């Protein structure tokens, strides 16, 4: 029979129904004969149940309508978001499925687009506050790398999450920290 120490490691997974069918049978066989492990399972179940039922208040002094109204007010100062260059390029390439069997051609086309769009945008960064100069630079850098372009799917792996702005204590509209570099945003 499976030992207590092994069962203990499985109990939480068992409780959350994340063990295999075989694992479940082994745990159940053990529980049927081991009051101590059965007690441990009961304890875990109570703990988890208490956690799940912890109350959360509503946002203070207002309804959810007021909450979303607050969000609306705050984003009113933010320029409307536009698809990033990388995203538009991926969408565009998707529409050109026939290029897929010819990676070199696809890569060349992609590079052309990157350069064309990149150059077209460069002279006017201030007029388009939503355009992220760093994102453009990054995409250009990646675009130059034909190794990357050979596998178009890799384009989708540009890790946008890392370049997400994070809040600084100063509040919004000031200097935000980007994943890779410091930069001032126009808001």
């Amino acid at each position, binding site marked *: 029979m499976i030992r207590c120490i092994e069962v203990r490691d499985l109990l939480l997974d068992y409780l959350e129904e994340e063990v295999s069918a075989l694992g479940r049978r082994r745990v159940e066989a053990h529980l049927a004969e081991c009051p101590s492990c059965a007690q441990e399972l009961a304890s*875990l179940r109570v703990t*988890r149940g*208490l956690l799940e039922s912890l*109350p*959360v208040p509503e946002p203070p002094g207002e309804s959810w309508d007021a*909450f979303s109204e607050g969000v609306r007010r705050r984003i009113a100062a933010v320029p409307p978001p536009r698809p990033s260059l990388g995203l538009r390029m991926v969408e565009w390439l998707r529409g050109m499925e026939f290029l897929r069997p010819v990676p070199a051609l696809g890569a060349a086309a992609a590079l052309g687009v990157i350069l064309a769009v990149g150059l077209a945008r460069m002279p006017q960064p201030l007029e388009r506050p939503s355009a992220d100069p760093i994102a453009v630079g990054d995409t250009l850098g990646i675009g130059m790398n034909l190794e990357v372009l050979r596998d178009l799917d890799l384009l*989708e792996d540009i890790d*946008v999450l890392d370049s997400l702005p994070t809040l600084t204590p100063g509040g919004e509209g000031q200097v935000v920290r980007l994943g890779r570099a410091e930069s001032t945003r126009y808001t």
Partner: protein
Amino acid sequence: MSVADHDLIRRVLAGEVEAFDLLVGRYQAPIFRLTYRMTRNAEDAKDLAQEAFVQAYRGLGSFRQEARFSTWLYRIAMNLCLNHQKAAAREVSGEPDERLRDERKDSLAVLEAAERDQALEAAIAALPPQQRATLTLRVQQGLSHREIAETLGCAEGTAKANYFHAIRTLQRKLQSFRQV
């Protein structure tokens, strides 16, 4: 859920910014639950939850359509919470443990549900931030270990281990003063 998140995002990016309202309506409650669980302060939680939507809106143009919007949004909110805690530098000290000790003296049977919840809240607040974040995403938001890993930017094994540690710690703390 009639319209997919991704369709709404596409509409926002196409200039129909009002479509973002629908995303806010869809996720405001779960995001507030998350920020409240992380801060234990309704006012801060509201502010952070609203800011999460603002940042999501701001960065919507670079959101990967392959990703899940909810995971991305949770990640933004969680980062805000963790930064907020660092900035506020009022990491929970020994105070919650004090409260637990006091309650331990009481007769277990008479613990009101509210008191018990309070003790549990305090025990959660005393967890290291990563464990607290993992626990919240798992229990309150119902994310898979994999989604938690994506949200917090860690390995799936780490997310799972953090969750196990958190549950065990809470279980131990509760055990010492009531029949859990």
